[in-house]
């Protein structure tokens, strides 16, 4: 056995064998380490082989790992389209040149960019190229007998001789039984025993790495079935799960509308709770509770939706991600007929829920009317005359409007951004800078100039911003993560050890060797020997 160079094709060329692997006890360590990675002459096949070896080498893996880390950094500095779309829009509006540059090198989409993908794909190719041969090798090792003892026992980390009184054969039996009890794999062969323990170390290591591939594969294959959408849901309103009900919807690559389970959700009430931070003198939320009624398959059930506590419906989940006020605005034509009446969700801008919103009245009046609104739950007048809110609760709810007439740009069929008015193309008829301020409390009505009609702040509702999401990757990624942790723990908690026992003139000689750093080896051998001497008849341990 010791006469032949064992095959190392299953491991990276630069894996530090002297540290990681059992000393096979043949070629001098120095010579093996000096072996060059790059051969002298390179034909096309050799070049491919060299490339493959380079790619699957440990050194390359380290460099790729560091590269992935470095390449991720811009993803935390430049706003990402997925995590921070508003940040992207801010750059687009404030610095178009920078925006163009970022866009050209995919800095707004770092984690799906070509360059980031290239690095992690190379890393995973390297990883797969590294573990596949090792899986095959380990599979063989798992089914093979423990390794033979080295020719020269002087190289072993631990050596002990135990004098034996009586039959050495019986003593060997006893040693084999003890080793088996310590969960060693044991082979008794004539006057010697070979035993090995800790296969779980490599098993765990391989499971860990395969689990990483599992995560990537799940993301690659299953994420196409994902979908998620957002919706602002006003108290009393119902939402039916179909594409047209969503304010925004993001389908995966293979999304099919039939994936949406038929169900409806209505918001019965939404109750936020606030307390005042005594030190900083600001209001802070301590609880958001939304009571909803889910109608699914003909059954109705009441559910409570909270932050950190999504509602499961069908194969999707509904999350509470935002909330705000939705003033009910009623617009009437000069004849007094209602042409617009609905709650309008306003987006909050600060801790006291000063909010902005837009009302578009395309039909029913002599001209199209758009209103840019500001909402103050607890309005107070600042010294400058401007309004502000000093409490997130509606103690003095007030809406102010800047009102415009003209073409709202809705006639081309697209709905446009519901939170934006094309004010550049409109004519302001009331509001700030026109001399006619529009300040409304609930029940107040403002008469539009030019006999267009009236605007009423009818009442106040709250709304919640929900996200409904179906994530097809969760199961695969969760399972892979569980295997990853199990593999990592098993691998790190296990020591790979080999022991040999042979009969010598002085008694039984025990030898042990471990892979890598193993300060506990001697103690482990000591424990087995202690049991051995205990069960023996007054045998005594002596160290050679």
């Amino acid at each position, binding site marked *: 056995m010791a006469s032949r160079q064992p095959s190392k094709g299953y491991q990276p060329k*630069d894996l*530090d064998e002297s540290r990681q692997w059992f000393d096979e006890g043949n070629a001098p360590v120095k010579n093996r380490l000096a072996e060059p990675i790059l051969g002298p002459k390179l034909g096309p096949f050799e070049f491919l082989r060299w490339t493959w070896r380079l790619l699957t080498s440990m*050194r390359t893996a*380290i460099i790729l*790992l560091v590269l992935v880390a470095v390449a991720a950094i811009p993803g935390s500095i430049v706003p990402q389209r997925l995590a921070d779309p508003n940040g992207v829009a801010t750059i687009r509006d404030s610095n178009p040149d920078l925006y163009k540059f970022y866009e050209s090198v995919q800095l707004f989409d770092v984690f799906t960019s070509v360059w980031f993908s290239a690095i992690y794909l190379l890393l995973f190719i390297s990883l797969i190229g590294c573990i596949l041969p090792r899986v095959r090798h380990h599979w063989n090792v798992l089914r093979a007998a423990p390794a033979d003892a080295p020719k020269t026992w002087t190289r072993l980390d631990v050596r002990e001789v135990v004098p034996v009184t009586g039959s050495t054969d019986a003593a060997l039996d006893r040693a084999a039984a003890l080793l088996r009890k310590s969960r060693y794999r044991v082979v008794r062969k004539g006057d010697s025993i070979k035993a090995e323990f800790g296969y779980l170390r490599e098993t765990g290591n391989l499971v860990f790495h395969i689990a990483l591939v599992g995560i990537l594969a799940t993301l690659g294959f299953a994420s196409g079935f994902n979908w998620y959408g957002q919706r602002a849901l006003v108290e009393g309103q119902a939402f039916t799960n179909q594409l047209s009900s969503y304010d925004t919807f993001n389908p995966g690559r293979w999304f099919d509308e039939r994936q949406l389970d038929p169900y409806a959700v209505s918001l019965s009430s939404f109750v936020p709770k606030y307390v005042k931070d005594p030190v900083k003198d600001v209001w*802070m939320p301590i609880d958001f509770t939304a009571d909803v009624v889910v109608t699914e398959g003909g059954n109705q059930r009441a559910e409570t939706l909270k932050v*950190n506590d999504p509602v499961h419906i069908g194969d999707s989940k509904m*999350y509470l991600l935002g909330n705000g006020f939705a003033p009910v605005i009623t617009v009437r034509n000069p004849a007094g007929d209602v042409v617009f009446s609905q709650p309008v969700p306003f987006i909050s801008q600060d801790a006291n829920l000063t909010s902005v919103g837009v009302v578009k009245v395309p039909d029913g009046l002599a001209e199209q009317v758009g209103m840019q609104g500001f909402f103050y739950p607890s309005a107070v007048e600042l010294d400058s005359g401007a309004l502000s809110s000093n409490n997130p609760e509606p103690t003095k709810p007030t809406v102010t409007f800047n009102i415009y007439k003209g073409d709202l740009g809705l006639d081309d069929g697209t709905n446009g951004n519901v939170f934006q008015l094309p004010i550049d193309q409109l004519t302001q008829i009331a509001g700030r800078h026109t001399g006619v301020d529009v300040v409304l409390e609930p029940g107040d009505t403002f008469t539009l100039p030019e006999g267009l009609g009236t605007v009423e702040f009818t009442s106040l509702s709250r709304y919640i911003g929900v996200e409904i999401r179906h*994530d097809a990757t969760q199961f695969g990624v969760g399972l892979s993560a569980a295997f990853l*942790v199990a593999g990592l723990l098993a691998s790190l908690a296990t020591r790979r050890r080999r022991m040999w026992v042979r009969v010598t003139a002085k008694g039984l000689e025990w030898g042990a060797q471990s892979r890598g750093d193993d300060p506990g080896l001697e103690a482990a051998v000591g424990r087995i020997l202690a049991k051995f001497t205990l069960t023996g008849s007054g045998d005594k341990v002596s160290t050679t």
Partner: protein
Amino acid sequence: MNDLATTSLIATYSAMGVYTFAFVLFTVDLAGRSASEEQSKPTRWLRSAMALTWLGWVIHLGATVMRGIAAHRVPWANMFEFGLTATLALVGVFLGISVFRDVRFVGSFITGFAILALGIVATNFYVAVTPLPPALQDYWLVIHVFVAVLGTGFFATGAALSAAQLFQSARESGRLTTRNWRFLSAFPKAEALESLSYRLTVIGFVFWTFTVIAGAIWAEHAWGRYWGWDTKEVWSFIIWVLFAGYIHARATRGWRGNPAAVLNLIGFTAVIFNFTIVNLFFKGLHVYSGL
């Protein structure tokens, strides 16, 4: 309730004071070693320093527990509290190891780091006890942040040993031979330092893996997705990948030793960066510094 928070803060400053004395004694001990070639027995300076570190840690523990009681929750929901608990874990890891192994030679590093970290969080990041925002009201706060705290403690101790290893290895290769560096003779050999550092860092890596997974599960509850490349998620990922690189480096020919130690220090720098710069200056969903 506020009295208890105040007492906690006083205890924090007291712990810093005791750590300072311990730091001075650790340093005196090192200086004493550089003055004489004698390096065998621990001096009484060293023993007193260890005793003071224990005392400081008990006061520190009291400060942390009182903060938790005052807030009616786990004491790690904002930057000040995280700093308080993470330094407690750091010194605790150091003291815990010292029961089994003589690692007292990094005592001045550990106490020095703890004083600095506590001083910064107590003076710059201190916030009064406030109730938790809805997003933080979850049992995952207990798990996710606690394993992050533990991981940070192990990473810090591992980094201290890696730094010591770099100096020691320079000394072993014939540099740093002046009198000033003689204290290094009191340190174990570079290889022993590396081996211990590796073991601690690997434990830190396991805790960090848990931190990331627990964070992902919590993110799914709170934000609807388990991973969205939020700035804090990006940096947790960077840290995880850097330490994975370190663990590989230790098994690679030509990377073991100093290059691996440097990688470990880079990893720990990323941990500190994640806690300070990312918390304070980067935009993201983890806006819980309380400042």
